[in-house]
């Protein structure tokens, strides 16, 4: 893989409005949670899987961007007393989103492939 190919790939991803790193994590978390994907479980899922602290506000900011790009869609749930009468907003990855996730995985796999620094246990 040449550097030229790398930049072409990044350009291509940017042009199509592909999800960024954190957005991709959010989409994967939404997919893992299925019908129970709303703010709290999404942030918990990312925290558990990536071992990093996640701010709920940034999860919603990423979800807003993804919704604008048409990669996720959302529906309002019922308001509950535990949430002070506020409704949950459930998210779901759209067909376009699923295609983008697959494409991102393919691009990452291609970039990772054949890097000697990443093979074996030590840096």
């Amino acid at each position, binding site marked *: 893989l040449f550097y030229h190919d790398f930049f072409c790939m990044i350009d291509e991803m940017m042009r199509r409005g592909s999800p960024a790193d954190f957005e991709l994590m959010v989409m994967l978390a939404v997919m893992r949670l299925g019908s129970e994907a709303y703010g709290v479980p999404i942030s918990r899922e990312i925290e558990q899987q990536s071992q990093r602290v996640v701010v709920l*506000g940034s999860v*919603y900011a990423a979800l807003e961007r993804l919704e604008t790009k048409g990669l996720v869609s959302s529906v309002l749930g019922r308001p509950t007393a535990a949430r002070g009468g506020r409704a949950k907003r459930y998210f779901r990855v759209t067909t376009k989103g699923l295609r983008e996730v697959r494409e991102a995985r393919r691009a990452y796999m291609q970039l990772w492939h054949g890097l000697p620094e990443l093979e074996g246990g030590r840096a």
Partner: protein
Amino acid sequence: VKPLQPPAPATWLLKLLGPQRNAEALAGDLLEEFREGRSRAWYWRQVLAAIRWRSNLLVFVFVAGYAWYLAGSSASRPFATVVVTAILLASFYLPGMLSTAKKIVVGVVILILGVLLFCYLPDFRNTYYWSCVPMIVCNFVFHREYQSQPSFKISYRELLFGDLQAERSRLISQLERTTSEETDPERRQAYEHSLEALRLKSGESRQCEEES
């Protein structure tokens, strides 16, 4: 037992300066987490991180600059700038916290007050402070709550060539919304059955497409 309440100033700040879209969902999520044992410091941290600092700072800079320009070269320029900035900022942020009727009433009251000041106070007329009045009135009268985008937008490609899969996805998202808003359990169950059938159909056709 009264349920645990998060710090009120933080909630107020979130409503005032937080995101417009998904604001209710975010506030609900924070409350849910707080009631499950998160600390007040955690709540404050989340609120401060959720505030849209850049856009709010932009509004502040614009308003303060305009107020500074209006205050002219008088001796009381700093004081006048602070007062006008505070009034304009209030007109930007307060409407979001009022009901539609209250917003219109406040807007009309400010308009009447502005007209009276314009007619009977020459200083107000000559220093261009009057130009703030239409701005404030517009902020109150024309302020609208953020409405989420419709779940589907038809693309030209779909319009010209037709896309059955996209049509199914749209129907699914529409039906999901209807199901979540339905209160009658029987009708809700019927919607859920239709949803399942549609999802199944959608999955099958996607599989066929991939195979072909």
